[in-house]
């Protein structure tokens, strides 16, 4: 960058012994300029850190300032796999081991012995009930209790009796949860208009229904019976709202287990699961918002 380069070549630029210059500056000059930048950047860094601190001060510990990107909630499921594909051979343990392992890992959070502490957990009933408000977010109540959610509610998919979650029999289970959002209360559908007829039987009070069906026309009837386990075969409202990580550290989301008990073997099936509710939305761009798609292939050869 300096004109010195042209005059004396690179070497001279890097170290000019005549003038005692290193890269075009003397030691004193370097000292001064580096000192200047040290002060300059210290100031800037200080300003930056100060601004960020101020920013953090304005933030609530319990609730994010804005929630416009995270709501409406996503619907996530375990096991998940690359390209949302669930393909296995029921005769080959290796092919479904990753899935069952993921499910066991996931469900270990819901182990009964972890939910014993009466100070932290409380029973909210096995039937769906109203929202369970635990005071205002910013009130002084402090840490809130969480509703227990027993694995046994998931029946055959709980992994208590069947460690393989039905994979071995070709009746695979899926654990589905509604992504949690602070202070979000999902509202059940108020009418049946927006719900497909086949799913209407699932609508019950105080439950966010979930319904899985074939995605493609040609898969109709091939999926067989789909069984739902969990409180009210959906997401019961007493588990909402969620009071954020700080106030609700023990929070357990309600789960729904879905079991495909009579799936057509050796065929790739496209399944779409969807939750329904007033404030549940779907998006073209986000395939996991309020629904998800799954490719299921069970091989028995």
């Amino acid at each position, binding site marked *: *960058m*300096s*004109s010195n380069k042209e005059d004396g070549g690179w070497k001279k630029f890097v170290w000019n012994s005549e003038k005692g210059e290193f890269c075009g500056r003397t030691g004193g000059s370097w000292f*001064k*300029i580096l000192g*200047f*930048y040290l002060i*300059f*950047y210290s100031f*800037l860094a200080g*300003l*930056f850190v100060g*601004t*960020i601190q101020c*920013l*953090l001060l304005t*933030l609530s510990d*319990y*609730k*994010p*300032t*804005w*929630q*416009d*990107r*995270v709501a409406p*909630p*996503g619907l*996530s499921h375990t096991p*998940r*796999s*690359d*390209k*949302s594909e669930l393909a296995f051979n029921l005769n080959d343990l290796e092919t479904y081991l990753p899935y069952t392992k993921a499910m066991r890992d996931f469900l270990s959070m819901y182990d009964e012995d972890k939910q014993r502490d009466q100070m932290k957990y409380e029973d909210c009933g096995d039937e769906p009930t109203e929202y369970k408000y635990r005071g205002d977010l910013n009130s002084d109540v402090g840490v809130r209790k969480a509703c227990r959610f027993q694995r046994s509610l998931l029946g055959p998919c709980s992994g208590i009796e069947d460690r393989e979650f039905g994979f071995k029999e070709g009746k695979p289970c899926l654990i589905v*949860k509604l*992504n*949690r*959002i*602070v202070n979000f209360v999902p509202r059940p559908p108020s009418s049946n208009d927006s719900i497909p007829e086949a799913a209407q039987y699932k609508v019950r009070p105080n439950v966010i229904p979930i319904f899985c069906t074939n995605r493609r026309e040609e898969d109709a009837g091939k999926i067989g019976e789909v069984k739902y386990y969990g409180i009210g075969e959906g997401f019961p409202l007493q588990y909402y709202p*969620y009071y*954020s*990580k*700080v106030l*609700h550290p023990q*929070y357990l989301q309600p789960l729904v287990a879905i079991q495909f008990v009579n799936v057509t073997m050796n065929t790739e099936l496209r399944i779409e699961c969807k939750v329904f509710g007033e404030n549940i939305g779907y*998006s073209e*761009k*986000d*395939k*996991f*918002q309020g629904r*998800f798609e799954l490719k299921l292939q069970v091989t028995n050869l």
Partner: protein
Amino acid sequence: MIKNVVLQTTHFFYEKKITKSIFYLQDSYNMFEMDGEGKWNAAYIPFIVPFTIGQFLQDDHEITIEELEMRYTTSVTKGLTSRMASEVLERDGPNELLPPKGTPEYIKFARQLAGGLQCLMWVAAVICFIAFGIEFSRGTLGCFDDLYLAITLITVVVVTGCFGYYQEFKSTNIIASFKNLVPQVKIWKYRKCMVISVCILGQLEANLGLYLGGCWESEPQSKTPECTHENPLETKNIAFFSTTCLEGVATGTVINTGDRTIIGRIASLASGVGNEKTPIAIEIEHFVDIIAGLAIFFGFTFFVVAMFIGYAFLEAMIFFMAIVVAYVPEGLLATVTVCLSLTAKRLARKNCVVKNLEAVETLGSTSVICSDKTGTLTQNRMTVAHLWFDNVIHAADTTEDQSGQSFDQSSETWRSLARVAALCNRAIFKPNQESLPIPSRIVVGDASETALLKFTELTIGNTMEYRERFKKVVEVPFNSTNKFQVIHELEDPLDLRYLLVMKGAPERILERCSTILIKGQELPLDEQWREAFQTAYMDLGGLGERVLGFCHIYMNEKEFPRGYKFESEEMNFPTSGLCFAGLISMIDPPRATVPDAVMKCRTAGIRVVMVTGDHPITARAIAANVGIISEGSETIEDIAARKRIPVEQVNKRDARACVINGGQLKDMSSEELDEALRSHPEMVFARTSPQQKLIIVESCQRLGSIVAVTGDGVNDSPALKKADIGIAMGIAGSDAAKNAADMILLDDNFASIVTGVEQGRLIFDNLKKSIAYTLTKNIPELTPYLIYITVSVPLPLGCITILFIELATDIFPSVSLAYEKAESDIMHLKPRNPRKDRLVNEALAVYSYFQIGAIQSFAGFTDYFTAMAQEGWYPLLCVGLRSQWENVHLQDLQDSYGQEWTYAQRLYQEYTCYTVFFVSIEICQISDVLIRKTRRLSVFQQGFFRNKVLVSAIVFQLLLGNLLCYCPGMPNIFNFMPIRVQWWFVPVPYGILIFVYDEIRKLGVRRYPGSWWDQELYY
């Protein structure tokens, strides 16, 4: 009987050795009208088609005619045989100049696509394609982003390429359209000549009364058959292609045709390669190299860092690409081009047409102007300047608009002198010009007579009618041999005497006089009066003026009664014992605006060197008049005369001024010339040939100056080409000169050059500002990637967003800086030193990158972290989040509040960050464009709203930013999200900081010039 053959507007299409006759030639595009149908009679031109194989004028002008005939197997009287002629035609081709070989259009376009920065963009695009290919084959989601980016990059390169090409096309088009304005050589004439050259024989005698003139100068020069100079360009017996015969008839032998003529050579020389790079081109190249080098350096470093940290090769390549895209200022070249063309447009309105955009700036760095005299410094119009009668020198009004003072016209002598001047004059006004002011009317006649006619028209009025009253009986025309002219007139009815009036060279006229008219009285012409005459003559001559003497006599009515047969050839009337009326001197006066302009140059540290073909005394007088030789400056000769010592004893260093004539120049070595230019600040070169102009230019360049040269003649074109900036005259200039020049002065006025210099300096200053503005944002564009790679935060700023900043929102503000007024009086500064004062110097880059750029980066990150934190992602959580954040299969990533985000939700959050970062850069850039308005002055001194374009650019930038943010559909097309209004204000404090910090910087620079602060922070 003497015949007069007047030939105007006819082109010689051949260079020929004149074997017989004398003859006037004139530059083809001179002030003489081109009335299309020249009176050139084919019968007068016995051309003989030449032989020329690798011969360039050689010694053709020195050998005898017989030898010449031998050499070209031709005959001076008979010409070539038809068979021979067709052979020659076949061998040499038709006699026309081939247009210079232009670069093919597709190559020009390709060049626009293959610049240093463009190549980097291509590389980036290719990397994108490769990444797309690999990811697509893997079936990765979101791989279309890469394809999208690749296409965008290519579009950017192609669009900017088209833009550059269009600019270049337009600037070459300026000259193309200009070409149509000047009369072109008509080929049909040449064809006619071609045929004639074979068939018609030379039969003409040379002893016809002829006006003869030279070919290269604007003053006609006579041509003779004698070889007068060993240099073919100086000798008088060669007539060159593209010169015009003004008057006269000649026979000659054609020795060269078409491209082998001097013009052909000059044209090919001038249009050929070796086009020297303009200073601004060097600057930009220098700077693009650095940018490209740094981009690759940064890219490569972070490629290595990324590989080291453990990213996959493909990811590291994408990082490399992204860094290149972020660091390269894509919009910069377009900005520079637009700024230059804006100035070019502004200059065009001020009568400077710039052919080569870059020349705009060159003019600003000019340190020496070698100017022609005639037409550039002067009005190119002989005008009566002084009169001497009644033993007093009277000054006439020489201003262009006749606004000056007139002299006392009450004397009886004046009436007589005016009568002689009015009658003894063959010049006439062209009809139908009554509406025009007298000085600009077109006159048929030579320069002196034109001057006299206009003078009498102005003083006594209605000269034509006046001449009617004095009927002409006989006239002996003015000619170059006896320098006098006599006209007989008949006085009004009652007075039967004849009046003889005569004008001519003063000493010749005086010889013929025995009395002198003083205050209306005829007094005997004794020694005292002769001495008075001599003094006056010397005085006027010393002013560099052309002096004519006037005398008259009333003839005895008995000796010459009415009806007396006067014979002009036998001279049967008195030509001596006349009565001397007075002297009238004429000069081509300087243009009114020139002295001011020269003064401006002087204060701007620009030397004005006069290079003219005129006589040294005239040259010196004009130089002194316009201030090229300033008041009180002495030449060596002046000092010698004052001290009464020989010239050799004068210390050369004492003389500020120096007049060197062509003869002296020829004998000087280049070292001596350099020395002369070094030691005398005020130089005038007189009696120089155009070839010597080139020598002078080269000498100036050896001394490290940036030289501007004005020229009009064809043979000026090498000097114009050699000069850093060649300036051709729009009116008097020949095509070749215009082709070789970088700039054309439409009004031929020196003052326009000074305007150009001012604009050139301004644009250099403003380009500096524009570039500083453009460079600054590269740092806030680059740092997101660096932080992304090293700290693994979610990406704060995407490539496409960067391209939007570079090519959409920031273009208009950076161009608007070209409209900024000068900070100080730029015409009071020395011209920049091209070796030291770089366009982009270290201080500018360091200040932009490491200070303002750094502040902008912090602003961006503050806003980024704000947007993240307010949506639930605390700054510390962001660190190291990248791999999870970008995991397409992870649909429940927890934020700081325990909320779970799907991938698409995170992606939209990322786009929000892009937009927020974009907005931060925009806000800071508004502050940046405000601080860039000045480099030294406070913005308050410069005025916030004085630059209306800049204000509207800021408004435009904001509107465009809002459009990008809030237009529906943007999230999925260009990755812009509608962001919260609050986030627009997060970077505002940083914007204010930039402004305040820069004001402090400027204050320090102004208060403590030369201090450490000034050295380090002034760019």
